[in-house]
């Protein structure tokens, strides 16, 4: 599905189902150097179980036009513009990693429009190790190898998005290469990391949030370990937390557990 936004044409995967008027909408937001396809299984399940799904490629990423944003706040504004363009008054949001912070900012900027917020593999502050940031600048393949290692916790992932024979380490590495190559004007790796690393708006944003919040955290996550979400949990004492036995790549390493956490929670009224 293509959506003409002020910043360019956005691509959204709809989970293999056409749009159904009157159904609730779930917006799925990916993280740094990823695209909509990290949500394949969750997208398809939600789309076939009562939701309209928009799994977007962020501006300047993959199939979407426009330029990458320079801050989490700007990404959130771009996502809200996308909802405007699609005529969506309100929706639930699930974001992974950087996408979780974008979702948080959306809920702060438009508290009446975001009905539920699931922050998957989240942290605040979301610092990026200087060595990783430098590698993303100087030697992206090396940085991708580092992220691939840090994102996984098992050598035996269960049947995943590309089928039972998926080697999730290789799939993530290939996806990052593809997304990096999708934008020749910007280093999406560095710019995404900088947007995460420099984000300081969470305290204000958390104070604005009015919707129910769910944290889905990987117990073996090295990128955003569960303890790194403590400040969010402290600011939102009513937020629910689900721990999943997985690393940072929750949706591919533990697709079933992640789905069980998100559905039907995202659809609850």
């Amino acid at each position, binding site marked *: 599905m293509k959506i003409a936004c002020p910043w360019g044409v956005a691509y959204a995967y709809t989970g293999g189902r056409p749009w159904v008027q009157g159904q609730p909408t779930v917006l799925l937001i990916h993280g740094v150097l990823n695209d909509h396809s990290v949500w394949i299984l969750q997208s398809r399940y939600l789309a076939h179980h009562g939701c309209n799904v928009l799994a977007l490629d962020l501006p300047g990423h993959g199939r979407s036009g426009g330029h990458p944003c320079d801050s989490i706040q700007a990404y959130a504004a771009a996502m809200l513009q996308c909802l405007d363009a699609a005529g969506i008054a309100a929706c639930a949001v699930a974001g992974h990693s950087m996408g979780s912070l974008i979702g948080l900012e959306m809920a702060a900027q438009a508290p009446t429009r975001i009905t539920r917020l699931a922050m998957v593999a989240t942290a605040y502050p979301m610092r990026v190790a200087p060595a990783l940031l430098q590698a993303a600048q100087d030697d992206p393949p090396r940085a991708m190898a580092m992220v691939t290692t840090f994102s996984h916790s098992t*050598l035996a992932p269960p049947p995943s998005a590309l089928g039972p024979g998926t080697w999730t380490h290789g799939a993530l590495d290939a996806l990052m290469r593809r997304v990096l190559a999708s934008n020749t004007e910007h280093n999406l790796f560095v710019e995404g990391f900088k947007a995460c690393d420099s984000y300081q708006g969470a305290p204000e944003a958390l104070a604005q949030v009015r919707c129910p919040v769910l944290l889905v955290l990987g117990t073996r996550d090295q990128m955003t370990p569960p303890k790194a979400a403590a400040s969010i949990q402290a600011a939102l004492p009513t937020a629910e937390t689900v721990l999943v036995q997985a690393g940072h790549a929750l949706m591919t390493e533990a697709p079933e557990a992640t789905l069980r956490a998100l559905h039907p929670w995202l659809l609850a009224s």
Partner: protein
Amino acid sequence: MAGAANPNFDTLALHAGAQPDPTTGARAVPLHLSTSFVFRSSDDAASLFNQERGGHVYSRISNPTNAVLEQRVAALEGACGALAFASGQATLHASITTLLGAGDHIVASRALYGGSHNLLHYTLPRFGIQTTFVDPNQPDAWRAALQPNTRLFFGETVGNPGNDVLDLETIGAMAHDAGLPLLVDATLTPPWLLQPMRYGADLVMHSATKFLSGHGTVIAGVVSDSGVFDWEASGKFPTLSEPYEGFHHMVFTEEATVGAFLLRARREALRDFGACLSPHSAWLVLQGLETLPLRMARHMSNTERVVEFLAAHPMVQRVGHPMLPDHPGHGLAKRLLPRGAGSVFSFDIRGSRAQGMALIEALQLFSHLANVGDARSLVIHPASTTHFRMSDADLAAAGIGAGTIRLSIGLEDPDDLIDDLKRALRAAEKAGTP
């Protein structure tokens, strides 16, 4: 960066895709001899069929034991995933038919395994897929063979049986410039020797019957996808980038930015052609993979000894192994295959065809049979067996003479192998004496 979280090759060969069984604690990979898998609910059934969840439905499409094999091969190749089939031939057929249809064209190396040559030259044209065969050592020939309907470059990393070393970087770049993928058959160079995706291959297939299983006990094949080739940007692969009526109008390239090939191959080639691998065979290949690094090291050290012996023997006219400086692929092999260019090679004796047959008859440790990549050493006469359907001209073009003898060096004591060859060469010499 190496370590438990990012293991090296030898560790992946043992651990990738497998963990202690969560139900029984079994440490070895369990063998799941079950045709089908119980649904937890009607919704579970529907969502598995509709690819909303990961899991197993029916063993023609996927099986837990096969999935371990697929993940392990993908890990060893540096791929995003893999798909196992009933044989190497089934793998090649499925790889081609996932991408091509009637009216499409392949540019292929002419130095191919006889079975691959049969499929491309005789069988696929009946279904509208034509192939132009080219000299793998002449990059310009690949370019010259391109047609508007060309959809695939195909070659062997080390061509059977002349041991032509494919210039993966050059041929891969040429394919990509034309918006095409490069599929390579790496059967003779398992990933311990060469990971072709590092040099430009997009799809890598193996007859797992050979070195991956390594013990001459099983027929199997597997193809891996690097996930790097952009099928949609190419615009030449509607099977992947346009809605597929046969599976809910799925557009595989939208569904999976990487891995579209694997999705379609599983959802169509396995589902409809049905050349699935038996879980028992997958389990046997896994046993072989666990010792692949150890076996390959021995295969290569034995090969080095045997090649040196043959190259120095007065009855031997030519030894066709890239480790020798006079082999046309020597330079490429040194760069792409620093651990060795495989343990399958051919040699010509000075003498008649009858003397060649006398040599084969006299061998005791080398088994005369139609296979390679066994733990045991093997020998065959290609012109009368694996390549017998080829004309003399095609044989010559592929570097095979009437007296060419092919060896597959096994894991025996190298002194014993050399002794066996020494005696057989003596018998061949006597057979030529009036």
